[in-house]
């Protein structure tokens, strides 16, 4: 490097990004006022889940894949069971089994979003290094987070058998369906959680938001019957409208040198974003009236393109998930049998559902006995890596004048806007900004 170039080089380094799931690093290189390179470097070791599924019985996939993540095990179970049922010619798109699936998924959204909104993301906006320090000055926020998280856990435990890595989900439905009376016990905590969620939307709306706007292609499921969670076609704001079976035809996963997670991109158009912002922009009209009203009161219209405002969107989705869960409980009729029979056949099946942090796609090839021959799992964070890098590039470009330490913090916040789950994608982020 020449002396002149070296004098224009600015290097900012954070060894690990806190308050994300998993281990990764960020590298930003600046030359003068030009952002030369941005890399989200995921060095979480590969976990080989797709390989260890090969040779296992197709009935084992929900329990094996749920172990990929302690924050979103239901997402893994639901994408797995839908893919397996798809391979066997079955679609459980309505009825009490589907209702129970959506209910336990709402529990996971409540648990995951409340953890992120109150304990992981809020300290960024309030200027604390972590939630413990924040809780000393803002105990109510931490209490609300814990109360909300507990409500979600309660749903997971009642429907799933336990709150982490639930054991009651199976291909075809559940091992045991809860009674109406059991579900009624969830009403009071969910009503309280819904009230807290509404207050959270109002609180989040008052936070200071850096100016940012990004225009990645937004991709989410489209459920004609409601806000996308557990089923639907895959749609985007740029005309994509495909069945989950066509995911492979439109999305390509590529190895890159700087990440142990594969990078997903649209074959035709490149990077895209899944998750709360995508769902909100694509399915605003499917939010319940309460959630829509809360969003409007918070100053959000049917579109929201500022990733920093994802904290408001997550709060709106908390209202949605609580309300949705209460509606399911109110209309619940116990199924005659907790699961439908699923007979294996030689086939390929696809499943896509909405994990709290974005769309999760599974594909399984099984033989006539139901043994898994091949498995493909595309987690939301793999899909979002390119969009996160693009976001980061914009944030750095808009904040070149900030001192290194402040620039580093806003970069970390920009990453946490997307609640990345690096464990899923392959766990801390090492952030380096090099200025030339």
């Amino acid at each position, binding site marked *: 490097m020449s002396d002149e170039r070296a004098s224009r080089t600015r290097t900012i380094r*954070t*060894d*690990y*990004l*806190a*308050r*994300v*799931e*998993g*281990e990764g690093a960020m590298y930003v290189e600046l030359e003068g006022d030009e952002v030369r390179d941005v890399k989200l470097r995921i060095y979480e070791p590969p976990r080989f889940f797709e390989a260890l599924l090969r040779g296992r019985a197709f009935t084992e996939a929900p329990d094996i894949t749920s172990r990929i993540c*302690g*924050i979103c095990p239901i997402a893994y179970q639901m994408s797995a069971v839908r893919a397996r049922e798809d391979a066997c010619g079955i679609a459980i798109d309505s009825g009490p089994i589907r209702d129970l699936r959506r209910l336990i998924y709402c529990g996971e959204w409540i648990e995951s979003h409340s*953890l992120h909104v109150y*304990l*992981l993301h809020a300290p960024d906006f309030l200027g604390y*290094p*972590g*939630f*413990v320090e924040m*809780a*000393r000055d803002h*105990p109510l926020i*931490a*209490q609300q987070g*814990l109360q909300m*998280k*507990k409500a979600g856990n309660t749903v997971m435990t009642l429907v799933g058998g336990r*709150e*982490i890595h639930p054991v009651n989900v199976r291909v075809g439905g559940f091992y045991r369906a809860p009674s109406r009376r059991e579900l009624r016990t969830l009403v009071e905590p969910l009503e309280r959680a819904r009230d807290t969620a509404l207050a959270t939307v109002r609180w989040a709306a008052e936070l200071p938001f850096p100016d940012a706007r990004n225009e990645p292609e937004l991709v989410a499921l489209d459920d004609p019957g409601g806000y996308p969670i557990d089923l639907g076609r895959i749609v985007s704001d740029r005309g994509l409208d495909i069945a989950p079976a066509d995911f492979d035809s439109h999305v390509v996963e590529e190895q890159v040198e700087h990440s142990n997670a594969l990078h997903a991109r649209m074959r035709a158009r490149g990077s895209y974003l899944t998750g709360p912002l995508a769902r909100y922009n694509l399915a605003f009209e499917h939010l319940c009236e309460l959630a829509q009203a809360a969003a409007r009161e918070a100053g959000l219209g049917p579109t929201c393109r500022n990733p920093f405002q994802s904290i408001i969107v997550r709060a709106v989705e908390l209202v949605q998930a609580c309300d949705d869960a209460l509606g399911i409980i109110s209309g619940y009729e116990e199924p005659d049998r907790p699961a439908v029979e699923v007979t294996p056949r030689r086939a390929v099946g696809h499943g896509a559902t909405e994990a709290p942090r974005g769309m999760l796609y599974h594909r399984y090839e099984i033989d006539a006995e139901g043994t898994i021959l091949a498995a493909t799992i595309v987690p939301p964070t793999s899909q979002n890596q390119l969009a996160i890098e693009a976001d980061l590039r914009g944030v750095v470009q808009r904040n070149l004048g900030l001192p290194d330490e402040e620039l580093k913090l806003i970069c970390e916040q920009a990453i946490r806007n997307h609640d990345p*789950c690096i464990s899923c994608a392959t*766990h*801390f982020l090492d952030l380096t900004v090099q200025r030339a």
Partner: protein
Amino acid sequence: MSGRSRSVVVIGVGNAFRGDDAVGIEVARRLADLGRQPRIEVRVHEDEGLGLLELWDGADAVVLVDCARSGAAPGTLQRIDATSRAAPLPPRRARGHAVGVAEAIELSRALETLPRAVIAYGVEGACFEAGAELSEAVAGAVALASDAVRREALALVCAPQPG
């Protein structure tokens, strides 16, 4: 002495599948009989740390036992009284999604839900490989740690209520 015994919860913390990280769980298993004493509860906690707040909610005292990594010789037993002294938080950079024991204690302290006595025992670990058994040094320390936790819990349950 007030004559009223305190409620004490003993919590073995760890991961049964990660070598020496299972030592807290092993100690709790050995103390199962202790949980049959009035006003003493013995629990195992394998999940992330936030769940600890619920486990000690309402208890007068908590005794935690977990694997430690302080640089001491493997199998070394350490006792930390976190009742009034802040538990050392991990450095900012080392905090992921998963919440650790120290963060759970300090969060509970901030929310004024921490039991009146908080004692943590740490057994220095050496091996954290997936699927590994306890290392020889740590397996050899289980009896000592179990005895120490038992004495601590019995002393706490018999101790006079402050105030």
